[in-house]
């Protein structure tokens, strides 16, 4: 399998898994408007995943985009561990998404100038939507962080917990390096500098303390995940696996 395929698949996986998480909010949002917002974000993420899977399937040549989404097991998924973390309370979801949106925003900004025309087009398209997601999650982070003692405490707790999953966003393995060397992929090390700045600015506005870097989880690039991904996939993949010829 080519590095381009692996790279594209990773992006698709993160979008799909985070999208699935967001779809779990459908009918459970704190207000009607927010319910609609969270479901809309899920839809955007599924749409983005669809584009990247379509391309990955084309590069793969033997599997369809649905095969890729529904017929791979946990250890064959390469999404960031951050994206599979449980929704928790609304504050936890806000923090997880903010950290991920900030990464995605910067990542797609860079990927939009990839030498691979299709990756560049998909990135440019996704960027427009992710900008909007980032605005949404940042606004909520500031509102909750700079809100009541209770809301501040909840988002600070979520931030302290989720911080360990931010390290691997910026790792570079042989796939990342090969993609970067060929002008196709993103320099995650450079991205980290911009991400830090963006995160620090928003955390300051939200009156939240940036956690100190401690233990950092790693492994998603090799298919290693936290316990939550298996349950997520079991729910998401049940129907197409139980009824392989089902059409919808």
């Amino acid at each position, binding site marked *: 399998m080519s590095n381009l395929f692996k790279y594209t698949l990773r992006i698709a996986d993160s979008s799909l898994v985070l999208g699935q998480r967001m779809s779990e909010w459908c009918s459970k949002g704190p207000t009607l*408007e927010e319910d609609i917002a969270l479901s809309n974000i899920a839809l955007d993420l599924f*749409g983005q995943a669809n584009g990247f899977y379509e391309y990955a399937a084309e590069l793969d040549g033997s599997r369809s985009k649905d095969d890729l989404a529904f017929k791979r097991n946990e250890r064959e998924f390469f999404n960031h561990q951050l994206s599979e973390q449980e929704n928790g309370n609304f504050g936890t979801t806000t923090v997880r998404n903010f950290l991920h949106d900030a990464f995605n925003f910067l990542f797609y900004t860079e990927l939009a100038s990839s030498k691979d025309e299709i990756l560049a087009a998909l990135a440019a398209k*996704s960027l427009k939507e992710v900008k909007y997601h980032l605005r949404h999650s940042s606004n909520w982070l500031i509102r909750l962080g700079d809100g009541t003692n209770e809301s501040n405490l909840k988002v600070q707790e979520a931030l302290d917990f989720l911080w360990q999953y931010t390290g691997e966003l910026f790792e570079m393995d042989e796939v990342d390096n090969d993609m970067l060397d060929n002008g196709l992929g993103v320099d995650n090390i450079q991205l980290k500098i911009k991400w830090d700045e963006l995160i620090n600015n928003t955390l300051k506005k939200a009156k939240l303390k940036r956690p100190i870097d401690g233990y950092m989880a790693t492994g998603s690039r090799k298919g290693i995940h936290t316990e939550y991904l298996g349950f997520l996939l079991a729910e998401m993949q049940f129907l197409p696996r139980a009824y392989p010829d089902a059409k919808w």
Partner: protein
Amino acid sequence: MQNGDTKHIWKLLDLVPDPEIPVISVVELGVIRDITFADRFFTILITPTYSGCPAVKTFTDDIKKCLKENGIRNFKIKLIYSPAWTTEWMTEKTKKKLKKYGIAPPGETVVCPQCNSKKTQLISQFGATACKAMYKCSDCLEPFEFFKCI
């Protein structure tokens, strides 16, 4: 249609309404990017408004149905992502139609489609469809949808 009259196809597609905002056509929405004719086949290039917009499937089916009803079978539809769809492609005429329908058209200021007041406030960045946000007029107090600028 063997003569490859793409103008005729544009005209037909201008009759296909957007599935979510039926007062404007898919052409006016800007999702039809190009129509070409080669090797006896029309190729219709379409682009989604939002990546996950569920209307894409619906309007693709509607386009097929419309062309077939008009006796055109020699066509293919191709989905493209670049250039990414933007509300900047929307003409002033289309914006007027949206306003008349009760949706504030994309623009720098959000103007109440009911009373034209510029005193409006955001209720939610997201709306009933991916392309809209929810606003409220501070003068006439009517809630309304705003077509988001992207």
